[in-house]
């Protein structure tokens, strides 16, 4: 039993890193633009399928696949922000309800476009990030999943450092905190919005490329990841970067460990239940700072 617990916890930590990364991206976008990006998961899907397309070329290194994903999603995110979200932006904030519905429509479009182009079958990228597994006592940990964890944590760390210590990072936080004062400093809120959305989307896209060697991709995959991202953001707290990381791991562990007690298939309910619980008990999340009351 203890072994199971340790194993599932380890597994949960490995998936949790990814959830945290997704939550970070969503939080960034929300914190700065105040838009709930329902199409966040679809950016992951785009990243995943970019990797798959790269996999169809003679280039087999998964790192090139990740580069392709970054390129596609960054450009895509930029275009979405420029063409679709900018018209809805007033006084440095995106119209809350319309942004919600628009990104909903966008997720619909992207998911179905991918379905139309690639078909509904599960697809996979040939090759792996790392072969084999580590064996610790009775525990078998796939190296690939460890690589994904390491990459997620590294990217998250880079992002937090960027936001803390670079002028552009501080400008992004400034726009999120007080767009009017930011403009008074000469910061272009429009450009920061574009950058932020592209950055947040790229985080999702990279996640997509990272997981394709390990799991299958299919057109509808985006939405469940959007759900994970929302759950992480709610549990960690809207606007809190550390909260998103922490919540990512918590969610990953909770979901993974629950397999021990719940009948199979039911562990998918852990996320929604945790989100509901947090919304009812403490809507600002564990570390959140933004106002949540109507």
């Amino acid at each position, binding site marked *: 039993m203890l072994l199971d617990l340790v194993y599932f916890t380890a597994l949960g930590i490995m998936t949790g890193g990814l959830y945290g990364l997704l939550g970070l991206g969503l939080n960034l976008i929300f914190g700065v633009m105040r838009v709930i990006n329902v199409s966040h998961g679809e950016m992951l899907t785009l990243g995943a399928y970019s990797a798959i397309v790269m996999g169809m070329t003679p280039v087999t290194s998964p790192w090139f696949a990740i580069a392709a994903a970054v390129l596609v999603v960054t450009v895509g995110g930029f275009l979405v922000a420029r063409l679709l979200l900018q018209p809805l932006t007033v*006084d440095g904030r995106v119209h809350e309800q319309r942004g919600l519905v628009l990104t909903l429509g966008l997720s619909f479009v992207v998911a179905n476009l991918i379905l139309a182009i690639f078909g509904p079958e599960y697809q996979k990228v040939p090759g792996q990030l790392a072969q084999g597994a580590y064996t610790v006592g009775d525990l078998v940990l796939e190296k690939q999943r460890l690589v994904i964890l390491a990459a997620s944590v590294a990217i998250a760390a880079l992002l937090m450092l960027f936001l803390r210590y670079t*002028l552009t990072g*501080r*400008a992004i*936080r*400034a726009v999120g*905190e*007080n767009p*009017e*004062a*930011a*403009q*008074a*400093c*000469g*910061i*272009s*809120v*429009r450009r920061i919005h574009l950058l932020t959305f592209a950055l947040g989307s790229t985080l999702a896209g990279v996640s997509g490329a990272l997981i394709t060697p390990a799991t299958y991709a299919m057109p509808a995959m985006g939405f469940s990841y959007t759900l994970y991202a929302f759950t992480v953001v709610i549990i960690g707290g809207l606007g809190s970067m550390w909260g998103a990381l922490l919540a990512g791991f918590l969610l990953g562990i909770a979901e993974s460990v629950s397999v021990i007690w719940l009948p199979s298939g039911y562990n998918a309910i852990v996320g929604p239940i945790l989100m509901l619980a947090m919304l009812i008990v403490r809507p600002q999340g564990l570390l959140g700072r933004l106002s949540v009351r109507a």
Partner: protein
Amino acid sequence: MAANEAPVALEARAVTAGYGGSAVLQGLGVTVRAGSITGVIGPNGAGKSTLLKVLVGYIRPSAGTVHFGGEDITRLPPEERIRCGVAYIAQQRSYFPSQSVADNLRLGAYLVRDAGVRARREAAVLERFPVLAERRHQLAGMLSGGEARMLELGRMLMMAPRLAILDEPSIGLSPRMIDVVYGQVRRLREEGISFLIVEQNVRKLFAVADQVFALDSGRNRLAGSPAALSAEGVLAELYLGPGGA
């Protein structure tokens, strides 16, 4: 040079602007001469803050123009006007409480490319406002009202502006702090910065201003030196309506 012979630094001409469909400002005009402190007063709802937003660029006027140093800047977004030398401190919280004092100042110099220039200006600001030097690494959210105003002024100075627009700088401050703030304003004017100040505290404003514009319901009502406007009854009529007290 006499006050009304100095070149025009900033000017709004026949501005009509508002929110949604309604026009808050109707054909308003305001002139700030170089090197002067120009005030704007008026009862609540007169459109003072709206005027400032038009001048800084947050709102596009539906009619009329804004000129700075002779150039038409009506089409420019706020960040471009800042680049041209206009500075703005809003009524409330024109800084970033979640970042440190030092980072706030550095954000003020966002458009300054040269690291040397930035460093020199930061040193100058910290010298001018010792309280900020003391609290360099503290979060700006911890500052008191007066200290925050100093931070806003410091942030503004990092851009070495030619003209500063202040929206009710005395709000929420003790009388002593208000004097300190206006003392700084006077000093900065000596150093060559022009000011446009919206104020509710008419007395304090009149003590420093060269020229004052009085607004009412989005239109110009009066304009002149503080002495001329202090004349009996004129201001009472402005604030209390025709028929006086």
